[in-house]
């Protein structure tokens, strides 16, 4: 056997903020991508051991198993209230919630609106996949008009089931919000932009600039009933027109922050 002395050049590894376990997400689901981005940001900001995460009820209910920091598990929709309780008594800690669209935009609507209105110094990572993943693909408040789900088998009829809710636009109206943006996880370029936004959201919290939220357009191949690749295309073709990407509120004080 010939042994070659190849100099090691590590270009990619598991962030310290992610635990070394297999996750339970379906193949091609973007929850995993979102987790990794958050973990990379916590590493880069060197705040892992100062961070307390709040997991939701939804497919990411086990998020606490995957992040290598203190974590609590909230009731469905109540993560912003729980995060408020933590942040108010530990203001020097970094506190974030990770929530799906059913969790944040349906059952937890009051909690998210008021956390933003109070300007809670917390960061919210909002996974908008236009469906209830965990319970098997029912209609979410973010499901698109005409979208077929297990509880809107003929497609979402806006006459009876109402219209999609655009959370980034709504929360941007809150005076207590410091940073509200929408990004997408459907291709590498957008994933890089999403990471930058997540960093900026945590910076908003670190600088005491109020409530921050990054809405991430995400896929659910399993419940959309298409392949992972088709899901990425479906997201781009159907979700982005309904949920335009962009910065909805950026505190003027953030301009001075460089990283």
């Amino acid at each position, binding site marked *: 056997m010939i042994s070659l002395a190849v100099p090691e050049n590590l270009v990619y590894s598991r962030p310290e903020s992610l635990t070394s376990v297999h996750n339970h997400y379906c193949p091609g689901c973007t929850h995993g991508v979102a987790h990794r981005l958050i973990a990379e940001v916590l590493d880069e900001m060197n705040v892992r*051991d100062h961070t307390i995460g709040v997991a939701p009820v939804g497919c990411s*209910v086990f998020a606490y198993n995957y992040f290598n920091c203190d974590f*609590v598990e909230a*009731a469905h929709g109540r993560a912003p*209230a*729980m995060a408020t309780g933590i942040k108010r*008594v530990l203001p020097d800690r970094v506190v974030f919630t990770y929530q799906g669209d059913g969790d944040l935009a349906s059952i937890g609507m009051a*909690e998210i609106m008021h956390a933003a209105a109070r300007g809670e110094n917390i960061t919210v990572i909002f996974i908008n996949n236009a469906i209830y993943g965990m319970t098997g693909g029912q209609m979410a408040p973010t499901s698109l008009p005409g979208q077929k789900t297990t509880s809107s088998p003929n497609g979402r009829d806006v006459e009876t089931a109402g219209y999609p809710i655009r959370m980034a636009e709504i929360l941007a109206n809150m005076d207590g919000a410091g940073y509200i943006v929408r990004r997408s996880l459907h291709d590498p370029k957008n994933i890089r932009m999403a990471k930058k936004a997540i960093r900026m959201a945590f910076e908003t919290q670190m600088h005491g600039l109020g409530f921050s939220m990054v809405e991430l357009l995400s896929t659910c191949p399993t419940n959309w009933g298409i392949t992972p690749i088709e899901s990425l295309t479906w997201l781009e073709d159907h979700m982005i027109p309904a949920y335009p990407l962009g910065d909805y509120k950026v505190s003027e004080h953030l301009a001075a922050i460089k990283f």
Partner: protein
Amino acid sequence: MARELLKGNVAMAEAAVRAGLEAYFGYPITPQTEVLEHLSARLPELGRTFVQAESEVAAINMVYGAACTGTRVMSSSSSPGVSLMMEGISYISGTEIPAVLVNVMRGGPGLGNIAPSQGDYNQAVHGGGHGDYNMIVLAPSTVQESIDLMVLAFDLAEKYRMITMLLTDGSIGQMMEPAELPEMRPVVRKDWDWATNGAIGRERRILSSIYINPPLEEETNLRLMKTWQKVQANEVRYKEYYLDDAEFIVVGFGTSGRVALSAVRAARAQGIKVGLFRPISLNPFPYAMIDELANKASAFLVVEMNSGQMLEDIRLAVRGRVPVEFYARLGGIVPFPDEVLSEIQRVATTKLNTDQHPRDAWLARFTAQSER
């Protein structure tokens, strides 16, 4: 500390502050609001946390979050608001962390009214939230006792890692009485080995009420039961009045216990040998004491401001050995001592009929009387 004239709700709030309360999350509702109002001024003045939440749902979940960090935290509400807290109460119980709650009960069901009631006994004592859990429930009958139990509540909650609830009502919450507050204790945030307060120099921690694997949930259920056995063995509290030579015994808690005491005193003045047993810990309930008393007493008279919710627990302890009689006012009405005195006289002088359920017998008497 000197005795001063204090309103029940304010006294409870100030007692909590002096017991080291670090954070309060609540929502206004009569007849509890003075707790929230007092703390809205006091806690910020001391550099501690006060948040008026958007609802009781949010308030209990803020309590949940703060409790996870190992901080002394509480909320207070009244009946309809406590109903909204049931989700969080179940989650906090399942997570095995300490928190203190106050329910200043009012008339119900539904929106009911803002007058004193004891209609939430079952909700507090026999569950109300989903799943198998218990919380310690303490019922004061005076302003002084509200203060003392408030202080005790934090210690018990932390000792057993469970919710301790003060179950009181609009009468004790709103009344003014001379009482003595405790000395101000310094705030000590203990470094609990379970608290999620940032994994600095240690392994990360997780606090959750989810046990997706049924054997692990069963293990948790069993652990909760064993903790509860310890509470049952060590934390039963009650007060006895004139029991030494009592032929029969009145039982009442909180305000109805207080009214019953006046009636018992008046009866004693008339030579009726009656005593009063007043449970203070409604959960754990003093079953063993009632059981023992049932061997000596000729009858019990249970007085409540509900439709006989504690009555069932008394019947469970008495097990049919002697008659159990019942008297109640409902809807937010506090019985007058005279009403209870007439009942004591009736029990002392008539042959008691045990064929009927005491609730039904009382309802028949009460209906006949009000139709007269």
